[in-house]
């Protein structure tokens, strides 16, 4: 990248900078006129000095700008009197105001856009460079440093870039214009006005240099601070586990102190500069008053001349101040640019073509993978891989074994072209691997390491990530979208960004060996099955939701499963007890009173189950069907029972959390409430007390709590309330609840609940497991297993896959690598988080799958190498021996040791 910010700005925005400068220049004559006209108004129109009316307007409206005569009226000749002359000039003044402000607006907008485009370009360039950093760079540079550099640190550069050339040109021009104006009036006065500028020009850069150094220090310290924050967030577990929060806080406070210190010095320096600057500025008037005044008294100078000089000096102050500000701003921007850009040029960075250019030949690799004398050293120059040579045939399966630190991990990274060797060559199918672009290595090879990363998004997003190299089919676009797309491309070009369409279809179906999205989902599930994750994804699917508008076929199938489940259960009385289905005309004993009343799923927050008792409509429904008193009475009984049961338990007792309707904090309140209330006259209670009691019955589940409070009378009334609730639901709440309907798919419930369409009964041993098994049976019977698993592909995995277990993340990463059908699959301890049974299953599956293809697996235990064609034994960065497992396990002492140490 360009060494200085001016170089960068000039290279990418020279045309814009010239345009802005020209626009500024074009505005200057009008600015000159803007100063000239008021003078003419006062001298000629007010005072009529040296004027005889009527006068010839065309003569008068010919202004001399920098010695050039501009006739504003052209060839027309009009004679006017003093008053019309005044108004003509005033109108001209108004027009000039408009023109000047118009220029200002246009230039500012243009300037802003240029700056923002350049900022976009700079950020893009920096980010693209991050993607090309050699991996070891990230050991020295944390994300805590990189993020503020690309976001906050370059932000002010955008503002500066717009001003880089145009501001000095404009304000300089402005200054010169006024100076020119002054010189034309009286050259001595003009000289006096600028007499002190040389002093400022000499002094200020000297002071500014100190501020610049401090600015540099500040940037470095803030960067360290953000690095610290990033590190703390990542290692927050350790902070808790070892009680080091005070140390961490002190460390942070310490950093803040140093930043404050630097800030303080910057402020002092900056205001010293301002102080001197302003003082010098005021020296001008001082000279005018004292020296000019002296000469006026002496009678050597007209008083008017001194006053004019003071006014001119004042006019000069504004652009001069702008120029000095600009000087400080450019110093600041230069430092920032310099400090950011120097960080983004690490040694060994790959060129942009390495990623951007699509090679012509992407045919499958064949032949062999050969390394000659390959050496890799760590940052202390200790060889990790030491003069290693090997030849691997691309139709065999290799296991790499060795102890920790034997260099096997680095070897896999070298073979996958993720690390560059310091010495030696790697050739891939006859090509020098060093010049192969990422398009070849990233598609024909697949690498999965021990801590493969899962990105936020769905399982499908992660699974198909390895197929998204280039947009392959444009998105479906209407005219409006096409227009927006054109704007997008235009803007991308203006700021040197990539032009690809994010919404296009990026998936390379061919690479996965399929024709379309449907087939790809099936292939994805197959890959997950190979790796033993299909059942988990199926279960995600059961807990997932679908939109019946989008998938009416699936919704119908799930409704069939609902019927199927009912048929199964009807055939076996033992099963019938496990589920209590939803029936619009029957009270469900395994559901809470709240659920029975609403008889549907809340959509949005309006009817949140936890706060149902607070909803005015719900309360109104109770009132209408005459349930209020009964709810109060039941609430009172629930409260008394809870107080009786839990009053003498310690408040932190887990039974509270598990069983009580009332939290330990609320218990004393409730106790007091019970004491002051009269059971016979609950209606007389104050509103808050009533609300508290009313809320309790909503959570009551008869089959679970067995309090004997929900008798048939209450059930009947709740059913009545259910009907009233549904039939009187106000317009604005129509969409806040989706009622249970045996014939309809409930979009707000998950698939499992839709099939179940009821509640799993309390008090039946292993009811949940048995119902789960039953649902699985029904799903299989109807051939829905795959469709449900496909819904599971839409499961959101959370930040960095945090909603998946470590084992699931590893499995997903493996499936992702398998799906793109690589010629060479390189694994580095990629199954460490799995239990040994799943691990063995994956080894078997992959060995079978890669029969006749190339699999290179650095295994964590030597015994896993048994079924491979060849075993490579790594020791101290060298390839110690290569052979079949049977020989090595008998003949090689080191291998024997490795096997024995397991």
């Amino acid at each position, binding site marked *: 990248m360009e060494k200085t910010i001016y170089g960068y700005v000039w290279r990418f925005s020279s045309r814009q900078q010239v345009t802005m400068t020209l626009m500024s220049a074009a505005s200057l004559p009008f600015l000159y006129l803007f100063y000239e006209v008021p003078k003419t108004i006062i001298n000629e129109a007010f005072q009529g000095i040296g004027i005889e009316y009527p006068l010839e307007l065309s003569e008068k409206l010919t202004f001399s700008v920098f010695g050039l005569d501009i006739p504003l009226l052209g060839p027309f000749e009009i004679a006017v009197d003093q008053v019309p002359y005044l108004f003509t000039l005033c109108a001209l003044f108004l027009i000039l105001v408009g023109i000047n402000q118009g220029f200002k607006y246009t230039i500012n907008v243009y300037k802003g856009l240029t700056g923002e485009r350049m900022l976009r370009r700079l950020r893009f360039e920096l980010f693209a460079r991050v993607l090309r950093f050699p991996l070891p760079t990230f050991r020295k540079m944390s994300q805590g440093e990189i993020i503020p550099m690309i976001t906050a640190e370059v932000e002010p550069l955008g503002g500066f870039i717009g001003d880089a050339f145009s501001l000095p040109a404009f304000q300089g021009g402005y200054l010169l214009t006024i100076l020119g104006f002054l010189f034309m009036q009286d050259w001595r006065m003009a000289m006096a006005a600028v007499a002190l500028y040389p002093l400022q020009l000499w002094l200020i850069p000297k002071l500014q240099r100190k501020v610049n150094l401090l600015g540099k220090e500040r940037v470095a310290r803030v960067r360290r601070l953000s690095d610290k924050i990033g590190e703390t967030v990542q290692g927050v577990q350790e902070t808790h586990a070892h009680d080091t929060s005070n140390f961490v806080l002190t460390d942070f406070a310490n950093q803040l102190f140093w930043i404050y210190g630097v800030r303080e010095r910057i402020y002092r320096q900056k205001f010293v500069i301002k102080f001197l600057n302003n003082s010098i500025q005021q020296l001008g008037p001082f000279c005018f008053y004292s020296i000019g005044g002296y000469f006026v008294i002496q009678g050597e100078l007209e008083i008017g001349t001194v006053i004019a000089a003071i006014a001119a000096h004042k006019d000069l102050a504004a652009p001069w101040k702008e120029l000095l500000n600009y000087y400080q701003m450019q110093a600041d921007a230069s430092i920032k640019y310099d400090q950011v850009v120097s960080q983004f040029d690490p040694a060994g960075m790959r060129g942009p073509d390495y990623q951007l250019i699509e090679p012509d030949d992407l045919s499958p690799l064949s032949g062999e993978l050969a390394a000659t004398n390959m050496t890799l050293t760590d940052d202390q120059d200790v060889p990790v891989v030491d003069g290693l040579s090997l030849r691997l045939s691309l139709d065999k399966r290799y296991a790499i074994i060795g102890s920790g630190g034997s260099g096997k991990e680095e070897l896999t990274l070298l073979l996958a072209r993720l690390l560059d060797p310091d010495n030696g060559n790697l050739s891939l199918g006859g090509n020098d691997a060093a010049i192969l672009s990422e398009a070849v290595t990233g598609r024909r090879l697949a690498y999965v390491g021990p801590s493969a990363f899962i990105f936020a998004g769905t399982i499908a997003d992660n699974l198909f990530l390895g197929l998204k190299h280039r947009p392959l089919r444009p998105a479906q676009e209407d005219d409006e979208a096409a227009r927006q797309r054109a704007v997008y491309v235009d803007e991308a070009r203006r700021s040197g960004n990539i032009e690809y369409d994010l919404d296009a279809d990026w998936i390379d179906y061919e690479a996965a060996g399929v024709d379309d999205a449907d087939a790809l989902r099936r292939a994805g599930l197959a890959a997950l099955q190979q790796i033993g994750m299909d059942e988990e994804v199926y279960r995600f699917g059961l807990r997932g939701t679908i939109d019946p508008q989008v998938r009416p076929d699936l919704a119908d199938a799930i409704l069939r499963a609902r019927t199927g489940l009912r048929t199964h259960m009807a055939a076996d009385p*033992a099963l019938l*007890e496990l589920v209590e289905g939803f029936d619009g005309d029957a009270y469900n004993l395994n559901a809470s009173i709240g659920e029975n009343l609403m008889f549907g799923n809340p959509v949005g927050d309006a009817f949140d189950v936890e706060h149902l008792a607070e909803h005015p409509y719900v309360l109104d429904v109770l009132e209408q069907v005459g349930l209020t008193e009964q709810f109060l009475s039941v609430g009172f009984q629930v409260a008394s*029972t809870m107080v*009786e*049961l*839990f009053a003498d338990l310690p408040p932190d007792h*887990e*039974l509270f959390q*598990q*069983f009580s309707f009332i939290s330990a904090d609320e218990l004393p309140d409730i106790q007091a409430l019970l004491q002051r209330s009269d059971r016979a006259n609950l209606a007389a209670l104050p509103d808050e007390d009533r609300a508290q009691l009313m809320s309790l019955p909503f959570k009551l589940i008869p089959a679970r*709590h*067995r*309090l*004997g409070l929900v008798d048939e009378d209450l059930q009947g009334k709740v059913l009545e309330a259910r009907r009233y609730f549904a039939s009187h639901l106000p317009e604005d709440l129509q969409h806040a609840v989706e009622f249970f309907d045996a014939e309809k798919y409930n979009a707000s419930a998950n698939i499992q609940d839709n099939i179940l369409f009821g509640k799993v009964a*309390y*008090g*039946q*041993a*292993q009811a949940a497991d048995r119902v789960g098994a039953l649902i699985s049976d029904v799903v299989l019977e109807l051939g829905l297993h795959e469709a449900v698993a496909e819904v599971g592909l839409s499961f959101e995995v959370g930040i960095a896959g945090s909603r998946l277990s470590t084992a699931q993340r590893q499995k997903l990463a493996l499936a992702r690598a398998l799906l793109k059908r690589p010629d060479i699959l390189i694994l580095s301890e990629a199954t460490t988080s799995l239990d040994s049974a799943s691990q063995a299953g994956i080894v078997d599956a992959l060995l079978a799958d890669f029969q006749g293809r190339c699999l290179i697996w650095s295994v964590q235990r030597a015994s896993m190498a048994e079924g491979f064609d060849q075993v490579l034994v790594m020791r101290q960065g060298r390839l110690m021996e290569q052979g079949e497992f049977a020989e090595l396990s008998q003949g090689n002492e080191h291998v024997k040791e490795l096997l024995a140490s397991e």
Partner: protein
Amino acid sequence: MSLNEEVELLRSIPLFANIEPSKLKLLAFTSERLAFQEGQDLCKQGDIGDAAYLVVDGTADVVIEGPDGGKLTVAQVGRNAFVGEIAILCEVPRTATITATSKLDTLRISKDLFFRLVNEFPTMAVEIMRELAHRQEQTNLQLTEANRRLRELENGGG
């Protein structure tokens, strides 16, 4: 069955006879009422035990599987029996498999609650000791009987 009926039921069981009604109510409320179908296991030998069961109604077999895989039914239990307590008392895996031999109605008492009750009510601990001692005595008798028969067989064979 409602909570109050359950409390009455608990009171009729010697183990809980001396516990005050409000505690029994807590026990009943926080314990899960669990029904088993014939053939279902309450617990499996070797599993981690986290609860004991009070048989409210029905019958079950207590089966021990020997190291050779042979199965021995050591007891048949019915109404009011308290089973599965050894694993939670001694922190050992389940020592036997308990299988329902009819439709079985139980109250599942979690380990935590069980210990709380034992701590608060020494009489309950005494009851449990009595029950265990009783079983020990039964076991001793059976062992003596077994030894006698074994000797008979050896003598008869020799």
